[in-house]
């Protein structure tokens, strides 16, 4: 049975936000950033690029609204990361390690942009252990990206033709 794409995308996004806030938030230092990872993985699918950017924007906005941070901050950052992901997705197609590195670098970019843009807008965003987390979170996302990217594409596109591996 074919699952319609739009409800599937919305379900995945909501799941990512809920799991991130209700489960992964509890293990703090060793938690990946599932929402960024999801946005990055959507860039690897055959969804239209405009929609991938919109997905990034909405995902960021939901995370902003779920917390107390500046509304629009993560929306802007995740949109920029989605664009960077779309323009560099061919690197991720080389192999599993390349996919992991690509996911990790984009996650690092997202974290750095949140801190930089947030600071420019007068937010006190740099909490304790920020240095460790700027390393650990991209690393965990890299591992997850390498592991789940083909399955994610298969789920969304019902096809892993985009990958040179599967």
């Amino acid at each position, binding site marked *: 049975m074919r699952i319609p794409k739009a409800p599937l995308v919305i379900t995945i996004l909501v799941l990512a936000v809920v799991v991130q806030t209700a489960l992964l938030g509890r293990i703090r230092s060793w938690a990946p950033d599932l929402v960024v990872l999801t946005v990055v993985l959507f860039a690897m699918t055959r969804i239209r690029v405009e929609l991938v950017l919109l997905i990034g924007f909405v995902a960021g906005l939901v995370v902003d609204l779920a917390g107390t941070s500046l509304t629009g901050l993560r929306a802007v950052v995740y949109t920029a990361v989605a664009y960077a992901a779309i323009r560099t997705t061919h690197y991720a197609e080389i192999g599993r390690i390349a996919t992991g590195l690509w996911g990790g670098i984009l996650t690092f970019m997202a974290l750095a942009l949140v*801190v930089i843009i947030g600071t420019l807008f007068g937010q006190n965003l*740099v909490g304790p252990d920020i240095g460790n987390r*700027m390393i650990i979170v991209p690393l965990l996302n890299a591992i997850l990206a390498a592991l789940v990217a083909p399955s994610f594409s298969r789920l969304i596109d019902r096809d892993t033709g985009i990958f040179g591996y599967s």
Partner: protein
Amino acid sequence: MTSRERYGRALPTLITLIVIGVMLMTFDIRSEGQGVVGVLRQGAQTLLAPLQKAASYAVTPVVNLVDSVTDVARLREENAALRREIQELAAEINASRDATVRLAELEAIFGMTPTGVDIGRTVANVIGRVGVTVDEALIIDKGTTDGVAVGQPVVDSQNYVVGSVASVTASSATVVPILSARQGMTVLVGQAEGTLLPQTGSDLMRLEIFGAREPVLAGTSVVTSSGSLRFPAGWLVGEVVEDVQPSVDVITVPVRPYSSPAALRVVVVLAWPPDPVTASAPPTTTTLPETSTTTLPEGSTTTLPEDEE
């Protein structure tokens, strides 16, 4: 599909979305979280809260199990330390019992009654966290239907100050820990009053005391001051981590908060101030009878007029 066709409208879409995002940020800053942005935030939190509650309910046993297994060694050490602490505290209680009785007798003699009403408490479960990497906040499962309101102070199960409620929906609320807060808080360390501020990139806070005349010693407790409009007086916040000598102008003291938001499962929201309308009025701790005659130990007599507090 050629590269040109695939990315054709990507750049205009990106620019449009970024402009919208920057506008939202500007509105949020200008409206200070109120207005349309405030309504949007409340709506999103209302929608997400039931899902977070369900997820929290489902995963709590697993998280607790993992925590228990990994924490066994630390808990054993903690238990031994706590037993020693119990013995010390029991000795302190015995020593202070005499002082408590004496205080009650003196209050009865002078007709003093405390005006502060008991602070209502709402116990809440932490059902989520946002801002795992930066700008941390806790989501709790109690909201306006349970009497939680924006600005109310939040403490942990040991009565250490955690933070305050930043936003609230009918069934959930968001708590900003003092380490992530953008405002400072007025506190007391010894007899000196100062302002406790979060520090960027550190789990220590910065206490600034103007005109301090005495050194501040490591291990001294920091408590909320009656000069604070955001927290009731006398609640433990943290402890000073290094000795600081007084200087000419202002001294800066590093303070480690007692409460660690990362480990919290349950928090307590304090219904404070009891009457929000009088929140800005200066707090009073005791009242004397309308016309009271107070006999001082030396034998002198003081009479307070009826209209004086």
